[in-house]
């Protein structure tokens, strides 16, 4: 085939292009802004609790980089999971299945932001935090999205680590290292993630079945999932109180976290007990909604105490 013929074929093949239809808001949606807001909050708490000081500008830069890194992970997750997102009602309106952004555009966007956020955090704050952010993106995209999510019902348990790293990165941005305290912050989110997602998975079981994702309710059944939720809630309770037990939070936090943890266990017990019809569904929704409040309150209390201590 001559060069002229090849050029002619290419021009005809590419004359109609379905890309370039994404608006700025579509690209913002690729960043999963709601997940990003939780990442910003928990990373900020890690940054504020860390011993030592960081210049406010560098603190803002660190949080910005962590947020962009999290957003990049979200974009890469949507790039890889476009086929699943198309099937599930919860994700059907995302930019790729809605036909607003092509998969290639999402991939380019995600890779660019991933590299940009890591390099920026490394250059402007410190390279330990930058490397930690790179590892978190790798863990979420490669380990969770590409490997675990479609292969094991423990996907949420292990993959949850990616969502639990931000407070440790925030801590590392100040100290250039990690410590027991930052690990406890990680552990709170890590143990919180499975019951939080399984409560949602019980309600959206049909969606996950249709998408052929081996979530615990799909593979092991709803009863086994309820056992797991209760077990994780019981294990989470002492970890939620651990900041007080280890001496880096006040008795006020100790009492508040104990009460919140007791409610968490109580709602999980309710999910375990009610197994049929609307009451079962309502119990799952209650636990799911409270779990968000629970995590927010624990971190807000820790943040409040650090602000008071610093005043």
């Amino acid at each position, binding site marked *: 085939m001559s060069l002229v013929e090849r050029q002619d074929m290419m021009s005809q093949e590419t*004359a109609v292009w379905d890309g370039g239809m994404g608006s*700025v808001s579509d690209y913002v949606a690729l960043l999963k802004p709601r997940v990003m807001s939780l990442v910003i909050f928990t990373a900020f708490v890690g940054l504020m609790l860390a011993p030592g000081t960081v210049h406010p500008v*560098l603190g803002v830069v660190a949080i910005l980089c962590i947020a962009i890194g999290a957003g990049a992970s979200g974009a890469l997750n949507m790039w890889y999971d476009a086929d699943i997102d198309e099937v599930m009602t919860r994700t059907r309106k995302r930019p790729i299945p809605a036909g607003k952004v092509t998969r290639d555009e999402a991939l380019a966007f995600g890779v660019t932001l991933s590299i940009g956020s890591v390099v920026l955090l490394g250059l402007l704050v410190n390279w330990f935090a930058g490397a930690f952010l790179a590892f978190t993106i790798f863990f979420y995209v490669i380990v969770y999205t590409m490997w675990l999510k479609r292969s094991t019902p423990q996907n949420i348990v292990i993959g949850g680590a990616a969502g639990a790293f931000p407070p440790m990165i925030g801590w590392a941005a100040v100290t250039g290292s990690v410590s027991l305290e930052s690990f406890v912050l990680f552990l709170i989110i890590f143990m919180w993630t499975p019951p939080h997602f399984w409560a949602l998975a019980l309600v959206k079981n049909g969606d996950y079945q249709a998408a052929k994702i081996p979530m615990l309710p799909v593979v092991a059944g709803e009863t086994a999932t309820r056992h797991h939720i209760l077990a994780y809630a019981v294990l989470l309770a002492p970890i939620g109180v651990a900041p007080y037990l280890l001496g880096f939070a006040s008795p006020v936090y100790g009492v508040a976290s104990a009460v919140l943890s007791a409610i968490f266990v109580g709602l999980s017990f309710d999910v375990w007990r009610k197994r049929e019809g609307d009451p079962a569904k309502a119990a799952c929704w209650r636990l799911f909604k409270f779990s968000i409040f629970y995590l927010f309150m624990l971190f807000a209390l820790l943040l409040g105490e650090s602000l008071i201590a610093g005043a």
Partner: protein
Amino acid sequence: MAKEDQGITLTEEQKKKRRSRSIAIACVLGGLVLLFYVVTIVKLGPGILDRAL
């Protein structure tokens, strides 16, 4: 050269979306320039003027 060999022809909507994305990218790049300027001042402080000629 053949008349149809003109590559991709964007629709009006694609052009409009591209323009809005271009403005957003310009804002981000402007923000990065400002960020590097401010961080340079923060990291070097008064030492920014203290260099061998």
